[in-house]
């Protein structure tokens, strides 16, 4: 078990006071952005990118990982207390969790969500430590055609399988791919889509794109809808669970973990499907089926565990293949590139210190989350009383500061505004953000691999199907597309509850 030794080594590296501090900052910040609907871990990581370029990569990634897990956890608080899930992954939690809260069992709902997240996150991280090196070992031998296939799979799945509308997903994807094209063609040295602007020849900085889409777009969207009726919050004390709650929760936690992790690990993950599956499973298995829909604790424990397990699963393709499957993961990938670290299968061997310290700090961050969140839940609920103008003024300040600090060029501020307007338009027309950001980040990688494959085969497109793995991946893609059509039929119409207020554009905005 060499990997466990490596994980142990990573644990020792992560338990320095400095790294512990970054983990703590990360989980606090993550919970902060997770609790507030509309702002998520992807935005937080994007805003922090310029700041963290001054840090060691390890410290930065410890913080990012904390933000990611914290954001996953924070979403459950809002779902349970307000019935407004911040992202699609929390919709199922809101379904039973809010009913529990209304019945005066908010403390138990929050507790089962927190402990379930902890258990699923810990098991998930250990599974990442187990599977990522194995996958990376295999992936080192993968040729360019298979890489192309895997990236195509990730792009097509995130834009068509997830989310409510295939058309909108594809529109967002192609917008992202176009943005990814801007700049010098790496093979021929010709400028593309630069419109004669010298700054554009130098490729768009991912910080500017991500901050513009996530932070500025959201801020402008909120500014356009500033005054709304305040929501009624359910008051809550310190979360706790009785013996009966424990007895009813532990099996859903484990089942949720088992369902969630594989869905997070396959490219085209996302927590929407596993949380749905976990919810349906728990409802089927429940002894007292009538309780479901009125606040059954199993309906909170299962989906919340599935949610966090899939959040952990996401690290497998990110670390082993360099393929992100969530918005946060793609911003993290951009951060890796910012440090001059080449993501891909060789990451596990070339940067093994970074990887193992990161995995170890995920375990630490998870524990910190549990320790912090159980007693702090009432405080997190208070965050919802921050006036929006002050909150978004702060976000805008950091957004502009971050965009400017990348190149110290006022042109970037103008670009930021342009991407902010694009982000606003996407929210207005319900375009999902994830396909766009994946397109921006994976597009150039896809192009490089595609050209590599074609250069080897002298331009013969048939070579793209020349590797068995590539063929398998395309078959999986075809199957998934068919499955999606079947699922749409099978899923009972009108299942999406009306009383849950999920904004369309946030559905895949994780």
């Amino acid at each position, binding site marked *: 078990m060499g990997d466990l030794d490596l994980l142990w080594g990573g644990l020792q590296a992560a338990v320095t006071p400095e790294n512990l501090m970054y983990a703590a900052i990360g989980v606090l910040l993550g919970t902060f952005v997770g609790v*507030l*609907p509309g702002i998520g871990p992807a935005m937080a990581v994007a805003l922090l990118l310029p700041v963290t370029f001054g840090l060691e990569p390890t410290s930065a990634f410890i913080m990012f990982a904390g933000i990611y897990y914290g954001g996953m956890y924070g979403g459950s608080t809002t779902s349970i207390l307000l019935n407004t899930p911040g992202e699609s992954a929390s919709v199922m939690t809101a379904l039973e969790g809010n009913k529990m809260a209304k019945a005066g069992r908010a403390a138990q709902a929050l507790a089962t969500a927190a402990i379930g997240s902890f258990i699923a996150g810990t098991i998930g991280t250990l599974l990442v430590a187990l599977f990522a090196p194995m996958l990376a070992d295999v992936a080192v031998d993968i040729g360019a055609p298979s890489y192309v296939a895997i990236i195509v799979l990730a792009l097509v799945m995130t834009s068509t399988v997830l989310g409510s509308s295939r058309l909108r997903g594809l529109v967002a994807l192609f917008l992202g791919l176009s943005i990814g094209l801007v700049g010098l063609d790496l093979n021929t040295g010709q400028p593309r889509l630069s419109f004669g602007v010298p700054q554009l020849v130098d490729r768009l900085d991912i910080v500017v794109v991500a901050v513009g889409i996530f932070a500025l777009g959201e801020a402008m969207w909120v500014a356009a809808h*500033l*005054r709304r009726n305040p929501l009624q919050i359910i008051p809550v004390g310190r979360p706790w669970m009785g013996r009966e709650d424990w007895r009813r929760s532990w099996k859903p936690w484990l089942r949720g973990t088992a369902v969630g992790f594989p869905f997070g690990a396959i490219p085209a993950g996302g927590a929407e499907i596993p949380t749905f599956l976990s919810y349906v499973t728990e409802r089927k298995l429940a002894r007292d089926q009538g309780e479901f829909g009125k606040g059954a604790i199993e309906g909170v424990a299962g989906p919340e565990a599935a949610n966090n397990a899939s959040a952990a699963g996401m690290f497998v393709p990110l670390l082993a293949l360099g393929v992100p499957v969530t918005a946060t993961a793609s911003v993290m990938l951009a951060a890796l590139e910012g440090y001059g670290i080449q993501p891909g299968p060789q990451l596990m061997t070339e940067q093994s210190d970074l990887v193992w310290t990161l995995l170890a700090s995920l375990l630490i961050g998870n524990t910190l989350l549990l320790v912090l969140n159980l007693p702090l839940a009432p405080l997190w609920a208070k965050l919802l*009383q*921050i*006036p*929006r*103008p002050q909150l978004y003024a702060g976000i805008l300040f950091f957004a502009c500061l971050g965009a400017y600090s990348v190149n110290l060029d006022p042109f970037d501020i103008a670009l930021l505004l342009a991407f902010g307007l694009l982000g606003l338009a996407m929210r207005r027309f319900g375009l999902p953000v994830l396909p766009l950001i994946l397109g921006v980040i994976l597009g150039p990688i896809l192009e490089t691999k595609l050209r590599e494959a074609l250069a080897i085969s002298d331009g013969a497109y048939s070579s793209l199907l020349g590797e068995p793995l590539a063929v398998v991946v395309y078959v999986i893609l075809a199957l998934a597309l068919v499955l999606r059509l079947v699922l749409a039929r099978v899923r009972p119409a009108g299942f999406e509850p009306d009383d849950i207020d999920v904004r369309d554009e946030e559905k895949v905005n994780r």
Partner: protein
Amino acid sequence: MSWIVVGWTPDEFGQVAVEHATAEAALDGSGVILVNASKGDKLVDLRFASGDQLEEVRRTLAAALPGGDDVVQVRQVVAQDVAEAVLAVAAEVDATLIVLGIRRRTPVGKLLMGSVAQRVILDAECPVLAVKPGTRPRYAH
């Protein structure tokens, strides 16, 4: 019929304002309008009453006034400016008195958050009664 307008929030400040308004209304049979306003810029505003809270205060008030349900109104408003929302209702019904529960504000707090009470007092067309929690109405009812 004359009306007393109360700037009401579901807390001790709203509570004391209602007590004073009840005493004043009992003197001459005026009606009481409670205005619960929010800027609507927070996701959760604890001063924005829930339907239950509004119904409860309306019932208590109606029980305390000789005129009963007919002389009690409760209005909930989301407006850019809470002070203006209260003043608008006062102007609409030609109020004879506005009652406000007031809280202490530090100079910095006032600079940052402004003061609703101050603007109501300065801009009102009628007398304004500013009351603090712990004070009792002049006339027992």
